[in-house]
């Protein structure tokens, strides 16, 4: 199996979110970057498991500048065979998808995996765009993936419904919780990662279709109104009369 996993660079969940340049840029000062969790724990690990049982290769691809090197090395340390970095500071989902699609067209991947969404942009759309650009089937929100030759059986979890579907390779799949268990790179993997190939390519597409004009932070909570446990019943009146939510 020839597998492609799209990995995005994301700030660690515990990062403080702040902006610079008149609130047009995310402030990276002191921020620890990680592989977007859905891309790493679910998409990449499942791809590695498939390679281990069925043979083949796992390529990771990232649209990012040189500071993505660290997350790319981590993916290689986890067991990916090689990596492609599209040298681009992505401004919207379309840019990311168009450039990954351009690369994917030059190779014959059986499965292209993405995460269900990035934890910074929260779009959840790159996978669907890729599928359309490559004219492939798209199975989103996948929580279980099994391969039998060219047939793939997938479970999808959506709004309280579990759908089991069957799709043929080649296809695009977005991954969520359940597909695999997170792994930690071992020493051998880390050493091997240093010599694995990372190909840097120039972007094909630089047009921005829906870029960010400005960022904003939500209003601070004005403080929590405390109610004594003995008066717990009063909460209901407050929710009804003041907050008007029940």
């Amino acid at each position, binding site marked *: 199996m020839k597998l492609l996993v799209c990995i995005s660079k994301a700030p660690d*969940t515990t990062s403080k*979110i702040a*902006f610079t340049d008149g609130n047009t840029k995310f402030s990276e000062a002191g921020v620890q970057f990680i592989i977007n*969790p859905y891309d790493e*724990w679910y998409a990449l690990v499942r791809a590695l498991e498939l390679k281990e049982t069925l043979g083949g290769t796992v390529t990771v691809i990232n649209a990012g500048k040189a500071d993505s090197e660290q997350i790319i090395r981590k993916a290689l340390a986890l067991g990916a065979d090689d990596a492609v970095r599209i040298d681009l500071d992505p401004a919207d989902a*379309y840019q990311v998808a168009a450039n990954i699609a351009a690369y994917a067209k030059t190779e014959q991947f059986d499965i292209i995996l993405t995460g269900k969404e990035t934890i*910074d*942009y*929260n779009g*959840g*759309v*790159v*996978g*669907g*765009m890729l599928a*359309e*650009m490559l004219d492939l*089937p*798209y*199975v*989103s*929100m996948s929580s279980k993936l099994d391969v039998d030759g060219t047939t793939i059986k*997938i479970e999808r*979890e*959506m*709004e*309280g*419904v*579990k*759908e*089991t*579907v*069957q*799709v*043929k390779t080649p296809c695009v799949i977005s991954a969520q*919780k359940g597909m695999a268990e997170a792994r930690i790179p071992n020493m051998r993997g880390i050493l091997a990662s240093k010599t694995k190939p990372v190909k840097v390519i120039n972007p094909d597409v630089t047009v921005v*279709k*829906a*870029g*960010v*004009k*400005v*960022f*904003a*932070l*939500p209003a601070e909570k004005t403080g*929590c*109104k*405390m*109610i*004594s*446990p003995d008066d*717990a*019943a009063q*909460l209901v009146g407050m*929710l*009804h009369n003041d*907050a008007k*939510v*029940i």
Partner: protein
Amino acid sequence: MTNLVFAELSNGKLRKTSHEVVAYSCKLGPTTAVAIGQADAGELEKLGAYGVTKVLHVNDQRLNNVFSKAYTKILVEAAAMVGADTILLSHNSAGKSIAPRVAVRWNASLYPGVNSLPENGSIRKAVFSGKAFADLTLGEGLKVITLNPNSYKPEITGGSATIEALTINVADADFDYTVLSIEDESGGHIPLPEAEIVVSGGRGLKGPENWGIIEDLAGALGAATACSRPVADIGWRPHHEHVGQTGITIKPTLYIAVGISGAIQHLAGVNQSKVIVVINKDPEAPFFKAADYGIVGDAFEVLPKITEAVKKLKSEG
């Protein structure tokens, strides 16, 4: 704007998110709705209440499940028929699988997961898992917009819609995959991402046998139930109830967290709730910092009192 809005059906009924996005679309401009698959009698007419005058119905039984490719074909062709420049969908599972395809095929700009009406040439969405907002620049050309569930309160304007059958030639090649089975895990309850009120339990409840107090309160409020990650991981509650960074993101008007510490990864899934109530026996629990109302106390004593008071309120109507 001239809009085409996708009104999603589930088992013949419109989803709550369909009402939201149809109302939102009507607020933005003249709107035609498209519904796909089997609809219960009288169901589509309900959309007239939000200001839609025409609903195009593709009544094709093969399309009772959402297939991103086939649905894309229908939406793009329908948009051309009505001369729309904007296609709107909900940012739920269906919308997230269809909208990106539609945007690419239609050569439009995609605005995923917006929260409110456009203002000053931009449109707002939540980013960084609810910790910030981004205002996206609204371009001139064709647009595809997906609306976050529970972000827009549908306004009833009255009015009636005419339903017109729409035939679009959907071929075998337009199906992404075959559906082998569908399992409803919701137990007949409203799906968690659509729920207005959510009662959620954490490890503080000590064991699955104690969930009765959560379910009683949820029952009294007509709420959905949720849980923290460890609770789903240990198997006290089903995985689809797990909210947070690794689970699902919700945006109810009221989120009641019981025996949950309020770790940042948990908050990432619930911090967009309008009002947050925290019940925790530890006054230092971080969740209180993100809460609007808090009770420091033992859930097993506090919750039944609240449930009683809710029942009393409801019975007084």
